[in-house]
């Protein structure tokens, strides 16, 4: 009985392969797996759930979310790099995993050689925050204090080479001082450490700052445009070269050697999805923006990021 099934399976697989190559134009003809190189329950997971519930109506096939956390995103990314280049495996990642990891770790893949961008679905801009009753009223106060007492300011971030550590290091580096860096396991624990007074300064995204209802105040936003009324951006505060590389981009990638018609089909589907009412509504509810950038455009941003992160890592590590 098992053998019969086995032979049938092989036959079915053969037929599928033959038909599959013949009918490539009809991509997609089976469910698409979206790999997330991060764990369950994080903001990336939440964004992915929204995408997975809306994208199928534009692709005509279900989207299966596959969480592959570990090794600062390397596990999931390398799995996506090893999957067949048929467009049935896409990677939903962010720029620090995508472009920064190559400068701080030995990777079994080459981010720019192996992947091409399908879309940047949105971005998140962090702001430097302190407790509302903090003695620091502005980023200048903080920098001056840190310069006068080197190492006395404790900066709590969400993990080494993560979405707060990188812009934080960039920003303080531009200001010419460096606080004591205290890593936390994610943004939540970092915020708790700030509220409890364990650390003096931290970073957070807007939606989180809003929910703290005046318990924290923002000093400066790492973004090209004003994020919170009355809070300067980094370039307004005289800190140059921080905003372009310090914000977090959520991006969808596929293997570079995927057939071009498959890539363009995916790009079209994502472009159409960002106009979807339900999608917009859900993202808005999550407190995320919907500033879409198409894959081709974002690919040039990735090339720039690779350069600036290389410079950043060299500057930070002193080598």
């Amino acid at each position, binding site marked *: 009985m098992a053998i019969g099934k086995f032979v049938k*399976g092989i036959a079915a697989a053969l037929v599928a392969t033959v038909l599959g190559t013949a009918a490539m134009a009809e991509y997609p003809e*089976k469910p698409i797996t979206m790999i997330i190189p991060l764990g369950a329950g994080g903001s990336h997971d939440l964004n992915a759930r929204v995408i997975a519930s809306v994208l199928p109506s534009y692709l005509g096939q279900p989207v299966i979310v596959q969480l592959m956390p570990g090794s600062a995103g390397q596990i999931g990314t390398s799995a996506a790099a090893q999957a067949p280049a048929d467009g049935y495996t896409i990677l939903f990642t962010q720029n620090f995993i995508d472009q920064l990891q190559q400068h701080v770790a030995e990777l079994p893949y080459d981010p720019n050689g192996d992947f091409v961008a399908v879309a940047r679905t949105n971005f998140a801009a962090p702001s430097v925050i302190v407790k509302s009753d903090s003695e620091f009223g502005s980023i200048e106060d903080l920098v001056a204090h840190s310069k006068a007492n080197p190492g006395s300011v404790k900066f709590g971030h969400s993990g080494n080479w993560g979405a707060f550590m990188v812009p934080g290091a960039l920003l303080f580096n531009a200001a010419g001082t460096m606080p004591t860096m205290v890593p936390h396991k994610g943004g939540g624990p970092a915020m708790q450490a700030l509220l409890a007074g364990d650390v003096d300064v931290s970073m957070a995204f807007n939606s989180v700052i809003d929910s703290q209802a005046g318990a924290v105040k923002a000093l400066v936003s790492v973004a090209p445009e004003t994020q919170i009324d009355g809070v300067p951006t980094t370039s307004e505060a005289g800190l140059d070269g921080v905003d372009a590389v310090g914000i977090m981009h959520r991006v969808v990638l596929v293997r570079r050697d995927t057939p071009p018609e498959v890539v363009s089909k995916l790009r079209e589907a994502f472009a159409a999805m960002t106009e979807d009412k339900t999608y917009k509504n859900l993202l808005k509810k999550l407190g995320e923006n919907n500033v879409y950038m198409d894959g081709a455009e974002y690919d040039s941003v990735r090339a720039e990021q690779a350069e600036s992160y290389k410079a950043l890592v060299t500057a930070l*590590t002193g080598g």
Partner: protein
Amino acid sequence: MKQDLSQQPEKRGVAPSTLSLVYGGVACLAAWLFVLIPGQVGKPVTLFGAAPDGLAPDAMPRYVLLAIIGIASIGAVTSFRDSKERIAVPGPAVILTCVASFVFAAILVPLGFVLASALTVVLLAVYLGGRHPVGLALSGFLVPLTIYLIFTRVLHISLPPGLAGF
């Protein structure tokens, strides 16, 4: 289980007990890993030339391995003269089940969840004495297929599709 072991008191003078051999083996393994620390634990990235704050990456491995060596040595010495426990040799069914799980783990991804489960369940069930065709069909095909469809189609969680191709 514990009673089974203590039912076989068999005093032997000099030969070490199984337990103390296990302790000794682990102590040696830990010592070997301890020697490997410099090569197996990476150096943290320095920030502006200064070593980063916090615990060095090789600190905990050193403490823990030393603790293992210590406690395993104590264990080896204290259990050396224990009665030589007779450990039951695993029967053929146990070994075959072990092999079956290794094989299932190996074929799960290439063959896919449904095919690999069908093969493993049917063959192992027949070996263990399940001969009823309905039982075999239910446990070998219907259950894996239902699970597969519910998880990939309804809940959008991926299971290896493999050769069956769906």
